[in-house]
């Protein structure tokens, strides 16, 4: 993405949005929720594009990250920011249990991860002494005050999740452009050939899985401290798998910032525009939009937005 555009967008995000919406808890809350989805969407797209593996169970990492962070903060008194990072680590560790699934192809891998998500959810429900069981955890510690700025408030939460998403996207971009990114791309075309050349393909794929899990777990941990509540049904809800996928596809999952744009678009338009107009039918609109997007612009929103300038320049040259 154009450097200038990126810097401008970041400026708006870090300065403009707080100025505009600081008083409006409702809209800020929605933006935070949209960015939470965006974070998972970026992690999912990273696994899909760089790792070549489509996953249907990212809710597993989200939930494990949420619970790890919440339990550490509540039962062991770990400071919240540290707990959040450890939540990401916890999710990454849980992905190691999924390494055997790496040798599965396409839908088989996707479903295996889904099975893991279900298993983790049931474990969270049954391990009551640790996780609070079906009732979950109430009043999870919020983010603390640092240097006078209360990160536990809506604005603080916004800045934290924004930073996470931006860092995730930058990391994704950096890997893509690096030699590792080149190796991963080559692996997609033919894994056997790349192995012959000496690329440790299984290690690379595993690294991508662990990274994707870490990012998703980090976002999940953030969410736990932001909402201050967790239960197995919420933490491992299929929404955390499905909405990021829809967002990534909608925004253009082959691009780095597409998932972020897609998440903001889907979530905000749904909650701010459609829900007040059609309190009972607005979810259907989401379905219609998704279908329309797939049929008319499968690359997603970003390529669709970029298409027009290219067409005009072609005409000009002709």
């Amino acid at each position, binding site marked *: 993405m154009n450097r200038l555009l990126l810097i401008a967008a970041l400026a708006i995000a870090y300065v403009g949005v707080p100025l505009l919406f600081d008083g*409006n808890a409702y809209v800020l*809350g929605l933006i935070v929720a949209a960015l939470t989805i965006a974070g998972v969407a970026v992690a999912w797209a990273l696994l899909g594009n760089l790792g070549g593996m489509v996953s249907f169970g990212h809710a597993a990492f989200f939930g494990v990250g949420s619970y790890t962070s919440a339990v550490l903060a509540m039962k062991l008194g770990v400071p919240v920011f540290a707990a959040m990072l450890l939540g990401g680590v916890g999710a990454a560790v849980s992905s190691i249990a999924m390494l055997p699934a790496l040798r599965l192809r396409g839908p088989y891998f996707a479903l295996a991860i889904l099975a893991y998500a279900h298993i983790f959810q049931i474990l969270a429900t*049954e391990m009551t002494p640790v996780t609070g*069981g*079906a009732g979950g955890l109430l009043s999870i510690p919020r983010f603390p005050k640092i240097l006078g700025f209360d990160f536990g408030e809506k604005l603080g939460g916004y800045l934290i999740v924004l930073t996470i998403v931006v860092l995730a996207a930058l990391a994704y971009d950096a890997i893509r452009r690096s030699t590792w990114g080149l190796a991963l791309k080559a692996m997609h075309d033919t894994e056997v050939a790349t192995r012959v050349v000496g690329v440790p393909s299984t290690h690379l794929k595993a690294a991508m899985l662990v990274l994707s899990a870490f990012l998703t777990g980090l976002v999940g941990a953030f969410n736990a401290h932001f909402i201050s509540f967790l*239960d197995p*049904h*919420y933490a491992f809800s299929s929404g955390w798998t499905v909405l990021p996928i829809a967002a990534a596809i909608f925004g253009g999952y082959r691009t780095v910032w597409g998932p972020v744009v897609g998440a903001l678009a889907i979530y905000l338009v749904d909650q701010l525009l459609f829900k007040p107009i059609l309190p009972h039918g607005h*979810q259907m609109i989401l379905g219609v939009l998704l279908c329309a997007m797939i049929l008319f612009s499968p690359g997603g929103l970003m390529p669709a937005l970029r298409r027009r300038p290219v067409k005009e320049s072609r005409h000009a040259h002709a």
Partner: protein
Amino acid sequence: MTRTLANFVTISALALSVTLGAGAAQAKDFLLGSELPLTGSLARVGQGMHEGISVAIEMANRSYAGKHSFKVQTIDDETSPAKGVAAVEKLAGDGVVAITGGYGSNIIGPASEAAQKAGLVYITSGGVSPELTQRGYPTFFRINNTDGYALAMIGLLQEMGAKKVSIVYLNKDATSSLAKQVNSALTAKGVTVGMHEFDGSTSDFKPLMNKVKLQDRPDAIAMVGYENDYVGILRAAKVLKPQVKAVVGVWSLATAQMAKEFPDLMENVYGTSMLPYPVEFTQPEAVEFAATYKKLFNKDPDYLGQFGYVQTRLLIDAVVRADEAGTLAKGGLPDELRKTDANTLIGRVTFDKNGDNLNFTHRMGQHQGGKVVLVWPQDAANGKMNFPAVPW
């Protein structure tokens, strides 16, 4: 003389306009907020509660006609905690005076916390879990709790003289805490209890029921779950025919809806119920409630509507009292609501310092020939229980 007359007229005119102006200033429109699951897995209960709230608004507008008017703004929380919080924040931003609604302790927790932050009263009948009233929020109120349900179930089982009970319960929060409460109370009275937890995805209860039939051999089966669980359990029991004397459930069971949809399955089954069916209201408020419900929604009120109505009515009365005392705008609503001591459709309601209604004791009804007859406690009963009796 003309001057005195002119003065008199002027002063009268002034006095009249001041009175009228003051009167007009006192006739207020109050906007209430409501955050409920209208879509998602709890859509059914959210809709039921919404109906009760609407009836309360309609009846309040009638009884305060000319003095005050009431409206409610309802936002769907889509059975999601995050969207529940967003809904409360939106309502707060729109300037509602208080919030009524909420279902599911997992959504009510975060949503009421958001209400507390916005300084808005949050009153509900859908959050029975004990933790909700232990957070020290002065704005949180609820008219029912797990204890009330447990007491009803325990009381009925005791009256039956059951010595062995099998409790089959869903592994969600509200259901398992209720089951555990009943378990400890019964065990303390010397009853042998077998506990069987099941997962929400269970659709075939025969293996579970077989365990109960062959291993536990209880006098009574207690079930704690939701409608689809009850249907599954009863169907399995009808097939396996365990030798028990009674089948007792909790919420969503002794309802007109269940009697109509699954008549052969429900016969002689017990569940919690505030009112008998067909509803035989005698009290004037209750009669008006049933009539308004019928007019607005063309059906008989169910327990969700009853609770939704009571909580909203109490809230409205407190709002009016606070307004008349001049404390409404200064955050005096929680204190005013805490002064409530009313006799309602669900019995006496008062709120303790945690916002809990400790008077709440549910009643047990039994499906008898397509009707629901209240059988426990004795002073609320309008019929005798068929015992021992089961649907097979």
